[in-house]
């Protein structure tokens, strides 16, 4: 597990202890949650122990989940899943196979990856990959279809396919 650094100088909070948010400066509170979120952003492909992150941020697990959800609209686990799926979408536009993408972003089961991807994105990873490759091929074949002419005419660009760009 990567070193999160010193996030708390006031000592750990006992598990289950009630915490009054107002006891801490607001900015200090935000920094601890933000650093946890950035840790997830940087280590999403690893096996992340969210309990450990909560402890390193000096919160009880329950309190950490509640504060995180209040700030980001998702629990840490939901956020981690979303980060993995968003990274998967990027990788699927490249030459990696669905299986390679699945394990690259931190999933350990192709079935669970496919199921979650379909739930969040609305289509299977294979369908999304095929769609993105087709879109990229269209852009490369006829880029002027995607560029307003007022800009395109100002550059020394090969306009041999300009007529194809006009609907």
């Amino acid at each position, binding site marked *: 597990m990567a070193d999160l650094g010193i996030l708390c100088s006031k000592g750990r909070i006992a598990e289950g202890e009630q915490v009054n948010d107002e006891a801490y400066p*607001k*900015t200090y509170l*935000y*920094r601890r*949650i*933000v*650093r946890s*979120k*950035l840790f997830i952003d940087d280590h999403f492909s690893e096996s992340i122990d969210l309990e450990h992150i909560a402890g390193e941020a000096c919160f009880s697990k329950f309190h950490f989940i509640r504060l995180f959800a209040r*700030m*980001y*609209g998702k629990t840490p686990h939901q956020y981690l899943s979303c980060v993995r799926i968003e990274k998967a979408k990027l990788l699927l536009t490249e030459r990696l196979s669905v299986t390679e993408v699945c394990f690259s972003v931190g999933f350990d089961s192709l079935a669970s990856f496919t199921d979650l991807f379909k739930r969040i994105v609305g289509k299977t990873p294979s369908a999304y990959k095929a769609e993105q490759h087709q879109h990229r091929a269209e*852009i*490369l074949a006829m*880029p002027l279809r*995607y*560029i*307003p002419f007022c*800009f*395109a005419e*100002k*550059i*020394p*660009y*090969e306009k041999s396919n300009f007529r194809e760009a006009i609907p």
Partner: protein
Amino acid sequence: MITRLSHVCVYVLDQASAHDFYVNTLGFNVHTDAPMGPGMRWLTVCPPDQPDLEITILPIVEGMMFTKETAEHMRNLVKKGTFGFGVFETKDIYATYEELKAKGVEFKKQPTKEVYGIEATFKDDSGNWFSLSQRV
């Protein structure tokens, strides 16, 4: 009649660096990345909740819209932080401020309560500045 705004332009010193800033630091999504000839790209990004608003990342280089002298003048103005290109909104300005600061973004103004809400201002990697606001 005009119905909506589809594109807005931001002039930058380096397109690759700006791509990294707007996508990886600010968290915007790439909308279109199309080749425009040797060393040039039509690159547009969009904020997460506005997939149909394209922010066009335009490099200030001689040849496209600028003469050599105009490009140099424009680059100096951008480096000086002359231009503010708009206002970005956030639901939680303190969280956004702490995160962008942790990622190395330069803020001109910390979150400050104003009449309309809470506002901060920051610069992109070229020097352009933006307002970041959370409305009341």
